[in-house]
């Protein structure tokens, strides 16, 4: 095992913690390459450290988001019921499927998701036109009204109330997100946030906060198994933890104060960079 600089580890934790909690993605995506390529830590130890870091980051971010009522706890618990079996299925499938082909397809899909997430100017419709274009699912909303949420947004200084649409589609996609996150080790956040925002019409801030809660559930199992198998080294993880904790507090504070539109743009840039990186890795260019 190589010698590691504890300040470099703490700094890595701070950056991953800030970005991970601000965007609801965990931060493992940037942590694994830093630990392996820059610090020379073997892959399995890097993944073990990354998974543990995501749990810490997700729990810290959730403690802040849920205190501010931004996290939709009921929606998070519901989506976790399919994400967890998805993550287990992905872990079992990992040895049987070709990772580069999946990375390539997934990267291309994420670029398309980036395109659909780009904020556009709202169309000004007459009341008749608005009624005609209303989502038919809205009229069948009553059975899942228990998933509705509201939170105070300090950036616009008003209460935001919303309905969570298409819970069944969200759950089905959640299973897929769990499979992909285990297969490619990307963390479910980059799938959960667009699914909640685009398909379920959950505002971006609530989607990010709820994604943090989901990450805690999906990575808890994996990190305990890595720890059980001896792939979590105290001298690597100990300096990372304070950095992640501070980063997670910083990230949640930024996310609360930034306008939703700006947060969406940051998320799209992060998603695009991730997708390009995945395609390059699949093609053995990076």
């Amino acid at each position, binding site marked *: 095992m190589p010698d590691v600089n*504890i300040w470099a580890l703490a700094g890595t934790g701070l950056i991953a913690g800030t970005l991970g909690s601000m965007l609801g993605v965990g931060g493992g995506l940037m942590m694994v390459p830093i630990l392996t390529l820059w610090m020379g830590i073997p892959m399995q130890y890097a993944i073990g450290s990354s998974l543990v870091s995501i749990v810490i980051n997700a729990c810290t971010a959730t*403690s802040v988001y849920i205190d501010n009522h931004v996290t939709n706890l*009921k929606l998070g*618990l519901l989506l976790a019921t399919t994400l*967890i079996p998805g993550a287990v299925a992905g872990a079992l499938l990992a040895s049987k499927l070709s990772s580069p082909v999946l990375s390539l397809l997934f990267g291309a899909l994420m670029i398309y998701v980036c395109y659909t997430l780009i904020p556009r100017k709202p169309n000004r419709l007459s009341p008749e036109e608005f009624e005609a274009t209303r989502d038919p699912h809205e009229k069948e909303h009553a059975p899942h009204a228990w998933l509705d949420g509201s939170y105070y947004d300090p950036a616009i200084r008003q209460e935001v109330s919303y309905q969570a649409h298409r819970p069944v589609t969200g759950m089905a996609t959640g299973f897929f997100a769990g499979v992909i996150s285990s297969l490619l080790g990307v963390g479910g956040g980059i799938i959960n946030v667009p699914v909640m925002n685009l398909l379920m019409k959950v505002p971006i801030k609530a989607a990010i906060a709820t994604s943090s809660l989901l990450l*805690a559930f999906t990575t808890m199992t994996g*990190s*305990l198994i890595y720890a059980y198998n001896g792939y979590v080294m*105290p001298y690597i993880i*100990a300096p990372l933890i304070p950095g992640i904790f501070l980063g997670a507090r910083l990230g949640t504070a930024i996310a609360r104060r930034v306008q939703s539109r700006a947060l969406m743009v940051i998320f799209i840039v992060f998603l695009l960079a991730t997708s390009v990186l995945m395609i390059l890795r699949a093609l053995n260019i990076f």
Partner: protein
Amino acid sequence: MMQTIDNPQAKLQSLNKRVSLALRIGIGIGLALVLAGIVISIVINAPHMSGLTPLISLIPDLLKLSPAAFVTAGLFIILLLPAVILIISFAHFIGTREKQPLIVCVVLVLMLAASYVLLLK
């Protein structure tokens, strides 16, 4: 408007507060233990903690002020926090008799138990 315990919004907010408090306490204790482990390793000049302490010898090693035991204890407290969220939510939904979230909690407990059994095999 006065918020009573019958108000669903007030009930949800009280659940949110309880979950947040539990997470803050858990993270605080976990972080304190990890930091204590780092400080002890620096004081006794043993920067390379060889591995996590097995749970069976955790308490004796904590009493011996082993840095790895402190980090292990802190880590396990933090790693079990998602399960704490589930337990608090489950107890809350039993109290409020909300059928759908209660079913979701039960399914989630079964899922987590099944996934451990499957993956640890």
